[in-house]
C-alpha cells in the first residue's frame, strides 16, 4: 500500500513549523499509524535525515501518550479511537495524509508531533483527588456505593488524559477533562467532603493554564477515545455554582 504523508516539522517551541512531504510505499494495511511512522523513521535515519519526533507508549489506547491530528481528525478518523488504535486499513491505497500536532495554547509544541500536556497534571494537583493518607482508610465494604453510581463514576474516571477534548475544542477548553475528574469524585460518598474546594481550585487552575471556556459545542465527547460524556461538564458547572 502507498500513502503520501504531509507531516508537521518543527524544531522546537520557538521555531516556525512547516509541512514536509514523504512518499511511502510497501506499507501493510494492518500497520498502526505509529508503526507507519516507525517505518518512515527507519528510512529517514538511514538517509541521514532527522526522524519525525512523535510519542507513543502502550500502543493500545490506554496510556494517552500518542495522539496527534490526522487529516483534521483529532487522534483518528475512526470514532472514539486513539492514534495508536488507528490502522492503515482505515485509509485507501494512494491517500494523502496530513499529520500535525494537537494545537492549543496550553499545549506548547516540543518538536514535530510532540506536545507538552503537563498543564493537565497541574489541574489534577489542585484537587483532583480524595485527600486520604495511606493508612487512614476504613474497611472497604463500610462505604456502600450503588452499582449504577459505581458504573457512572467509572465512566467519568476512564479518562486517559490524552487532551483530545482540548485539541478539538474551538476554545481549547479543558472542561471535559476537568469535569470528568470532578464528577468522578463528586459522585462518590468519600469524595463529597472536599467537593467545594476541589471544584473551585481546579477550575481556577484551568483558567490559569490558558485553557478557554466551554461554549458547549459537544465536539469533545465526539472525539474522546473513552466516550466521556459532556454531562460531566454539566456536573462540574453545578458543583461550581454550589461551591
Amino acid at each position, binding site marked *: 500500500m502507498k500513502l503520501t504523508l504531509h507531516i508537521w516539522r518543527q524544531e522546537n517551541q520557538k521555531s516556525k513549523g512547516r509541512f514536509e512531504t514523504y512518499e511511502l510505499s510497501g506499507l501493510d494495511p*494492518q*500497520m498502526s499509524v*505509529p*508503526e507507519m511512522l*516507525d517505518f518512515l*523513521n*527507519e528510512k529517514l*535515519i*538511514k538517509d541521514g*535525515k*532527522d*526522524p519525525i*519526533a512523535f*510519542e*507513543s*507508549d*502502550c*500502543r*493500545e*489506547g*490506554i*496510556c*494517552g*501518550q500518542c495522539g496527534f491530528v490526522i487529516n483534521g481528525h483529532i487522534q483518528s478518523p*475512526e470514532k472514539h*479511537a486513539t492514534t495508536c*488504535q488507528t490502522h492503515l486499513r482505515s485509509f485507501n491505497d494512494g491517500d494523502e495524509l496530513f499529520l500535525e500536532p494537537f494545537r492549543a495554547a496550553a499545549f506548547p509544541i*516540543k*518538536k514535530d508531533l*510532540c506536545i*507538552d*500536556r*503537563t498543564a493537565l*497534571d497541574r489541574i*489534577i*494537583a*489542585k484537587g483532583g*483527588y*480524595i485527600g*486520604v*493518607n*495511606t*493508612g*487512614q*482508610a476504613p*474497611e*472497604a465494604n463500610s462505604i*456502600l*456505593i*450503588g*452499582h449504577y453510581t*459505581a458504573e457512572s*463514576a*467509572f465512566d467519568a*474516571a476512564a479518562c*486517559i*488524559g490524552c487532551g483530545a477534548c482540548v485539541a478539538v475544542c474551538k476554545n481549547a477548553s479543558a472542561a471535559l477533562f476537568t469535569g470528568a475528574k470532578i464528577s*468522578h469524585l463528586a459522585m*462518590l460518598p*468519600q469524595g463529597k467532603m472536599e467537593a467545594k474546594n476541589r471544584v473551585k481550585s481546579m477550575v481556577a487552575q484551568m483558567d490559569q493554564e490558558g485553557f478557554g471556556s466551554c461554549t458547549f459545542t459537544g465536539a469533545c465527547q465526539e472525539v474522546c477515545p473513552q466516550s466521556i460524556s459532556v454531562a460531566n461538564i454539566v456536573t462540574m458547572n453545578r458543583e461550581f455554582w454550589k461551591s
Partner: protein
Amino acid sequence: MIDSKIPPGPIQEKWTQYKASCRLINPANRRKYRVIVVGTGLAGSSCAASLSELGFQVEVFTFHESPRRAHSVAAQGGINAAKDYKNDGDSIWRMFYDTVKGGDFRSREANVYRMAECSLALIDQAVAQGVPFAREYSGYLSNRSFGGVQVSRTFYARGQTGQQLLQGAYQALMRQSQIGNVRLHTRHEMMDLWVEEGKAKGIVARNLDTGEIKLHVADAVVLATGGYGKIYYLSTLAMNCNASAIWRAHKQGAFFAAPSWTQFHPTSLPQMGDYQSKLTLMSESLRNDGRIWVPIKSGDNRPPHEIPEEERDYYLERKYPSYGNLAPRDISSRAAKEQIDNGHGVGPMNNAVYLDFKDAINRDGKTAIEKRYGNLFYMYKKITGMDAFKEPMLISPSAHFSMGGLWVDYELMSNLEGLFVLGEANFADHGANRLGANSLLQACVDGYFISPHTIMNYLAGEKPIEDPKPELSHEIIDTNQKRLDNLLAIQGNKTAEEFHKELGKILYNKCGLIREKQTLLKAKTELKNLRDSFYKELLVPKGSSLNFELEKAARMEDYLELAQLIVEDALQREESCGAHFRAEHQTPDGEAKRNDNEFQFVSVWEILENGNHNLHKEHLDFESIKVSERSYK
C-alpha cells in the same frame, strides 16, 4: 553473603513484629531526609506519596511526560485480596499457599505471606481514594475468579483495573506535589546509580527534552521501574519499558535475581506481520467461556467453520481435565507453543491458536456473552478488524511479566544498602510463575505499606547527606555523557529498533517458553555476535537534546548485556520450574520437572569487575508449607 533478613517468629507474626520493632524518625526530623523514587507506576507513585505524607522529602523521576502514563495503566483483569467477601473459604493463608504453589515453590515464604496479609488494607485504601471497583446492586464490592485458584478473590474495575488503581496512586502523588514534599522530574531517565562507600546515595538522570545530565543525591534511592519483558521486543509491554535503571544499578553492585524467569501470557494477539511493534493482551478472563483448540491435522488451512468438531483438538481440556481452559499461564502458554511448533498453528502466520466462543454463545446466548466480554470483543475488532462473535479469536503466547529483577531482602532493600527496589522491578513474591492479579497487588503493597516502614528503618541509622564534592559529580556525569557520545559516534547502518527485533527473535526462539542446553549455547554465541555488531553498526541520528533514537540506543545497549545474563541464568538452572521449562527436565507426559534437591534456591547474580558474573544462591526454606508437586491435571 546472601542475608534475606527474615524476622524470626511464626509466619503470621513476622510483619507485625517487624513493624513493632523497626526504628522510627521523629516527625520534625523527617524533612531532613531526602529519598529519590524512580518510576511512577503503582509501586513508585504509592511509595512516593506515602513517604511524603510521612514528612520525608521525595524527588520523583520518570521518563514519562506525566506520572499517569506508567505501564501499570495497561493492566486489565484485576487485583487480588483475601477479603473472603464471597464466603468461599478464602483466607490470608490460602492466598499465601496459592501464590507459593503458583510460583512453583521458588519464592520466599515470608514475603509472600506479607503480601497476602497486606492485601486486605490495600483494597480499603483504593476504595477510600475513589477507585470505582465493580459493585453488586446492593452496593457491596464484587469479585471474580482468575486462573490458577479456586476462590473468587479478584477485585476489578471493568477491563481497566490498572488504570483505575494508578489514578488513585497518581492523584495521591499529585496531591503531595501540591501540599507536601514531592518534587516531580518528568521526562527524566535514570542512567546510573551513585554509590558512596557501598551505599546508594543518588542517581544520574538525563533530562530527555534538553539532554542535560545531572547527579541528584539523596539518603536513599527507590527503584520502581517496572518489568523488562520488552527485551523480547514483541511483548505486552509498552514501547518504552526497559531494564536500564535496574541494569545500571546492577553494574554498580546490586545483585540480579532469576533474570530468566519471564512469564508468557497465553492470551495475547498474535503477530500479524514483520512491521509489528507490540502484542496486545486480551484479558485472561476470556478463558472462562472461550474454548481453546487447533486443527488435529497439521498444516490444515481451512477456515475454522469448515473444520468439523471431530477434527479439532481442544488440547487444554484434553490434557488438564480438572482446570481445562483455565490452566495456569505457564502451562497454557507452553501447550500452545507445542501445538504451533508441531504445525497446528492457525491464522495468517500459522502462529496462533483459536479461542472459540461458539459453544458459550449457543449455551448462554449472544447477549449474555456480549455483556460479559463486549468491550474485549470490541477491542479485538478495533485491532484486528475481525469479529469474534462470528469467528474464533486468534491468540498466542507473548512475553509479559518479569518474575526476575533486582534481588531484595525482606525489607525490599538490595544488597547495596539504601537501594530499595519495588514492584515488578524486584524479584520477590512470584517465584517462577506469577498468578494473575497478584502483581498489581504486589506493586501497591510494596509502595503503600512496606517500603515506608523499611525505608524509615534504614534512614534512622543514617546522617542526612550533604551534596558531594563537585569533582566527584563531574566524573560520573562525564562517564555517562561519554557513553552516549560513543553510541552517537558509531554511525553504522542499523537502527536500535532493528537490533531490538533481532534480539527479540533470538530470545523467543532460544530462551523463551522452552529452553534447551544446545539452543541456549547457540543463543550465547548469537548474542555475543549481536553485541559486537551493535558497536560497529549502530546508527543513531545526531543531536544531543530531544533524540528518541538515542534513548532507544542506550536502552538497547543495556538489553544486550542483560540478555546474556538471562541466557546464562537459564543454562545454569538444570530443572524446570514454573515459566522456566528446560526440555531436558520433564516428566514422561511432558510436564515441568523440578529438582528440589539441587535447585531449591534463587539464583542471585553478582557482576564482577571484568563483566563476568558470579552466582550466589539464596536457599529457600519452606517452614510453613509442604513442598509438593504442582499439578493442575
